Structure formats: structure tokens, C-alpha cells
């Protein structure tokens, strides 16, 4: 139980750091190809941060709700990966033009 709390705590701290990083980046990059994509990434990181903070309380949910919540997080995790890869592709394309 203690290990779970420690792991959840550090995960949440790292995710909050990620949230702070992406918001700072968004403020420095207001527009362009990166700025537009960052809007979506900020929304996803907010969702993940909320999810990570909720981890210690997930035990109180019913099994079905827990499974659905986990699957939603996993789905958006996959969306995040696709969005990041597509952003990297666009950057490389622009820089090699």
C-alpha cells in the first residue's frame, strides 16, 4: 500500500511538472505549427494530470468505473503519442524544406 502511495505521489509530481512545462512552452510559442498542436497537447496533459492525481482514490470506485476510467486514460495516452509523433514529423518536414 505504501509503495503504491509513493509511486502515485511521484507520478503525480512528474505529471504536474509536465503540465507546468507544456504551459510555459505554450506561452513562449503562441502560434505557428507548433503553437496550434500545443493546444491539443496542453488539454491532454491536463487530463493526464487529473488522472494521476486521482490514482490514490481510484480504489473507491466500482470495478466497472475503474476499468472504463483506465481505458479512457489509455486511449488518450495513445492519442497523445500520435499527436507528438505527427508534430515531430511536421517540424522535420518544415526544417528540411
Amino acid at each position: 500500500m505504501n509503495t503504491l502511495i509513493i509511486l502515485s505521489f511521484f507520478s503525480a509530481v512528474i505529471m504536474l511538472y509536465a503540465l507546468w512545462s507544456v504551459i510555459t512552452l505554450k506561452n513562449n510559442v503562441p502560434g505557428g505549427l507548433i503553437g496550434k498542436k500545443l493546444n491539443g497537447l496542453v488539454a491532454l496533459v491536463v487530463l493526464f494530470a487529473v488522472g494521476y492525481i486521482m490514482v490514490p482514490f481510484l480504489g473507491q470506485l466500482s470495478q466497472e468505473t475503474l476499468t472504463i476510467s483506465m481505458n479512457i486514460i489509455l486511449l488518450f495516452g495513445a492519442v497523445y503519442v500520435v499527436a507528438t509523433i505527427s508534430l515531430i514529423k511536421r517540424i522535420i518536414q518544415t526544417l528540411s524544406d
Partner: protein
Amino acid sequence: MNSAIIFAKTSRGQDVIKNRAHRLDHSLRLALILVDGHSSVNQLKLKAMTMSSLENNLEVLALNGFIQADSDSWQTIKDNSMAIRKTSSSPEISKIKARLIDAAILVLGDEAHRFINLIRKTPDSPQALSETINRCKKIILLTLDEDRAKELNDLCHSILRKAENVNQ
């Protein structure tokens, strides 16, 4: 052009209005008269709805020193003119760099700062300047705005082409 820029007449611009000291096209003269030191480019557009080429006219006036923008980047240039404008050992290249810097401020407003530094640090050759412009275009495209990236690229390349034609 950055539509939030507020232009004011320079002393040269005021001379033109008062003394007709410099022959200006009718449309340039009208644009110069419109510039009042408090209206942004957007507001000027509303005042001169029939003037289709207002932005171009403002660019020409600014690049020729008749008006200047009330922006931090422009102020930096004014305050450190020796450091920024005399960026190279060659007077020709120095002039081109100054015009490119003006163009960057016209299009990007206060966001022109880092591009001004890039232009300043570019080696003294038209080829290097052209490469810097392409680099700026890519950075703006990625981080600011696609339309302004294209606008600045076109404006800077036209400045370089004009300079090359004059030299030939």
C-alpha cells in the same frame, strides 16, 4: 504586417507634410497624413477603407524613415542605433541589414527581437543573409504564424533583390 503596430511620423515625415520637402506619391502622402501616433494599423485601415494598399504604403514609408513604430523592438533600434544598425564592416551590407531589421519589426512587431539578433549576427554576404531569412521563415512558421512567415520572407527577399539590382 502586424496590425497592432502604432506608427508615428518621424521628423523627416513631418518635414514632408509641412514643407513638401520630398516628392511622394499621392497614396503615400495620404498614408503619411493618416499616421497620427495613436492609431494602430487596424484603426488606420478603418479610417482609410477605400485605400487598398495602405499596408504597403505604410511599409514603404517606414522603410524610408518617414514613420516609425511605437514598439519595443523599434525603440531598441532607436536607442542602440549604432550597435544595431552598424552591424557590419561593409556599409552596403549594413544598409541591407537595417532594412531587413525594419521589415522584421513591421511584420512581427515586438516579436521581432530574436530575428533582429539573427540578422545582426549574419556574416556579411547576400548569400548568408538569404539563408538567415529562410531560417527566420522556418522559425516563424513553426512558432508564430504561417501568414506572417510568408509575408516577412517575401518582403526580405524583395529587399535583397532590389539591393542586388542596384549593385549590378
